[in-house]
């Protein structure tokens, strides 16, 4: 059932006209309604079922081209006319603007609604209900029991996030979309005496109501069980500097954190990226081409339209090592001059959109993964990466969930407790080989506009030298 649609046009035009008349250069209103479900299964029981419903609006006002376009943003869960007007007044007041004191700025009205959600009306009802979700998760935890050893805890989790969004702006933007994100997680804790290993995998998709129904629980459980058994008796890695091979799929988190964030105009605005004035220059090894796009069907970071009503693009960030583009949102375009790329994203109505990544990956190269490993006498193979972060000076860190020593060009014993540290400027030129097996993995990215759905990816890559924290 549609809630946010063209019926809102009149109400929104009144707000936008009022904001413009008060002197705003641009007013944007983002509305959302959400319907979420999370289910948790532990061992043989469903232990939590959490439905969550809600709606809200975020109103953003830009003012002052000469001052770099200041903005005020107010969010509210009160969608009445009074509540929205109150939010607009507050946002205007932040910029010393006041409704009723007209300066003659006009508003030509909204464009006809661009409805990206018209073919998606049934997605919510097509998603599995609680019973089906619970059954599939219990199947997953049963498969873990079947394939695993020394398991102390088995968990399966599912979350579904359905969102109806409507965005309107005083430049005529008027867009609606329906979005569906689903995630599935399996995790185990194995223990044998003093030995312990914890392994988790998360799978995610967008716009695919059948994702959970089609999920291969057996394959997922086999993969996790094998990883858990391998890591249970692994030794801690000896600290030092190593050549490293990072596996494909979630290995791409290193590019996402270490370099991708530095190519968002949000970072250009803050002056926190070393790449701000490097357009057209070599910033990475010539073997590296990196892309961010929002178009791949059913990928976690894909979107039909961004949270500012702009269609996503395929953006080549780095081509053969040369910086080609930044990811830009509306504010980024206004303040830095980099053209919008359909990258304006936010967690929900309580955040102003910011330039954020979507599906980000290093393109495939010519080598087989075996070529990369055989080129190293002594190093580290990072088969599964954990999370990481990047600091205000570009310093990054990533944990390695599942690692193996490389000895004489071949994989050796498993190691745990490794953390990769470095900074993008130093490490990007050290990516000397890219494999031919590009693959993507779903993830979450937390930053200025909240936690959003993204995809990271890469083929196997070789970094000639990186600092590895260990024991």
């Amino acid at each position: 059932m549609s809630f946010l649609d063209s019926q809102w046009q009149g109400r929104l035009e009144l707000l936008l006209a009022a904001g413009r008349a008060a002197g705003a250069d641009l007013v944007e209103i983002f509305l959302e309604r959400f319907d979420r479900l999370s289910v948790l299964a532990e061992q043989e029981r469903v232990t939590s079922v959490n439905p969550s419903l809600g709606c809200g609006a975020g109103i953003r006002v830009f003012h002052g081209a000469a001052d770099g376009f200041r903005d005020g943003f107010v969010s509210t869960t009160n969608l009445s006319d009074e509540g929205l007007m109150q939010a607009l007044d507050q946002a205007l007041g932040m910029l010393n603007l006041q409704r009723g004191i007209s300066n003659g700025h006009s508003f030509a009205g909204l464009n006809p609604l661009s409805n990206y959600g018209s073919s998606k009306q049934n997605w919510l009802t097509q998603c599995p209900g609680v019973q089906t979700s619970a059954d599939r998760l219990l199947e997953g935890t049963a498969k873990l029991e079947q394939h695993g050893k020394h398991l102390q805890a088995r968990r399966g989790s599912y979350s579904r996030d359905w969102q109806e969004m409507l965005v309107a702006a005083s430049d005529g933007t008027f867009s609606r979309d329906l979005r569906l994100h689903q995630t599935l997680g399996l995790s185990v804790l194995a223990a044998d005496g003093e030995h312990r290993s914890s392994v988790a995998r998360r799978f995610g998709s967008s716009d695919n109501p059948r994702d959970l129904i089609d999920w291969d629980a057996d394959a997922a459980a086999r993969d996790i069980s094998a990883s858990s058994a391998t890591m249970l008796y692994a030794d801690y890695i000896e600290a030092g500097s190593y050549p490293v091979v990072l596996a494909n799929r979630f290995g791409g988190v290193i590019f996402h954190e270490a370099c991708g964030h530095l190519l968002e105009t949000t970072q250009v605005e803050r002056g926190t990226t070393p790449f701000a004035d490097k357009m057209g220059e070599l910033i990475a090894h010539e073997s590296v081409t990196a892309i961010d796009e929002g178009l791949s069907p059913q990928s976690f970071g894909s979107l039909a339209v961004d949270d500012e009503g702009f269609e996503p693009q395929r953006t080549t960030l780095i081509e053969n090592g040369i910086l080609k583009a930044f990811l830009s949102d509306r504010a980024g375009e206004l303040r830095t001059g980099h053209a919008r790329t359909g990258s304006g994203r936010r967690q929900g109505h309580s955040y102003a959109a910011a330039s954020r990544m979507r599906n980000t990956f290093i393109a495939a190269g010519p080598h087989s993964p075996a070529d990369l490993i055989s080129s190293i006498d002594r190093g580290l193979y990072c088969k599964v990466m954990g999370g990481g972060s990047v600091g205000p000076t570009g310093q990054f860190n990533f944990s390695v969930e599942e690692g193996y020593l490389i000895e004489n060009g071949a994989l050796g014993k498993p190691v745990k407790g490794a953390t990769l540290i470095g900074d993008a400027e130093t490490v990007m030129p050290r990516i000397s080989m890219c494999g031919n097996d590009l693959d993507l993995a779903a993830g979450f990215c937390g930053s200025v506009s909240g936690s959003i759905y993204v995809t990271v990816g890469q083929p196997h890559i070789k970094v000639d030298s990186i600092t590895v924290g260990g024991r």
Partner: protein
Amino acid sequence: MLNPQQLHDQLSTLAKQEGINQWDLGAASGTDLSVQVDRGEPKQLKGAQRSAVTVRAWTSDGRVGITSSTDLSIEGLAQALKGAKEASVFGDLEEPPGLSCRSLEPLIPLERPRLALQPIQNLLKTLLDAERQLLDLHPAINTVPYNGLSERNGESVYINSLGSQRHHLSSSSACYLYARAEQDGRKPRSAGAVRLAYGSEQLDVQACIKEAAELTISHLDYSAIDTGYYNCVFSPEAFLDLIGAFSNIFNARSVLDGLSLSNRDSLGSTLAVPFLNLWDDPLHKSNLGASAFDGEGTPTAPLTLIEAGNLAHFLHSEGTARQFGVAPTGHAGMGSKVSVGPDWFVVAPTPGVAAGDAQLNRHKADGVVWIDSLSALHAGVKASQGSFSLPFDGWLIKNGERISIEAATVAGDIRKVLKTILALEGEPLVTPGGMCPYVWVEGLSITGET
């Protein structure tokens, strides 16, 4: 303003219509204002009006369902209750949560000021002044890329079908300043400081500026550290962050789920050196986020966790307490599966026992690593394994002089850390997340960037 009596009356009526005899509700609403600045200009001004409600409903055979919503109207409550009733079909019969037997007990009075929000332009002026002062303090400090000043007024309500009616009002304000400094031919360096208070006019912004500047400047002349094992001294914030990351040790929910480093029989076992005491003190006067009740309406109160090095108590919700045959401790969230967590840790020496080696003094040390702050705890902590490998900001102390460490990680096992504490140096200091002295730990693995 939330009205517990009105909410109670409304939900009682709705529950009767739905045939629900046992229910509870948690609701929260609030208004936030925040500002950020960038080199003398407003960067972003932000406001928010928030509301959220969570309703639980029990079936006659004890299963519970839950639904959350942003809608606090009577229609929203009805929808949430109906959703909870529908979800209760899938409730866990083996270990269902109940209503807390302590939800009707009187609360310990909590006297906290309720302050009116300042006009946002006042916040903006304060932060612009703070940024200018910080930039003026050293020529190498060229930006303050992460900064903010915020105020929040909030309230929360807990009510249930037993007649419990809890209501809490809060005011809070925060200021953070993270400066970035750069010198020719050197890598950029960054450090910052945070201050909390009930209102922005009570914030010690000058102290925040001073600390941010001093820390940033102290990291300008950095060196790589040789990889190896070092005695380390943790700042109060760093040690509390580490303890917090491994709080599953004290968490009865984690024990029952098999995800804790402790088990049911661990109470009384030796966890740490005998001169270490640790307790959770939710009502401490310096805990600005204190609440007199938890997510199940249970009164909050101090709880000893480590006494003279031994595990003394677990943190409990209603459900875990029932499993252990004890009373709930006031550490529950609200859910169909109820979470359990600490509020505000205090680390202090065991009374009457020397706090380790009294000769240890970080200002006179040699070859010791001073860990000021830890990062990326979400990625580098394996809570159920006990191990950690974390990036940190800090200094190598040589003959009492601090030399900033370029980039490094510290790795170890929390169980070993607690048993190899060499000393608690000085009196416990108040931090945003608790109280703790400087803590000396023997021989941790440090990896330097080469």
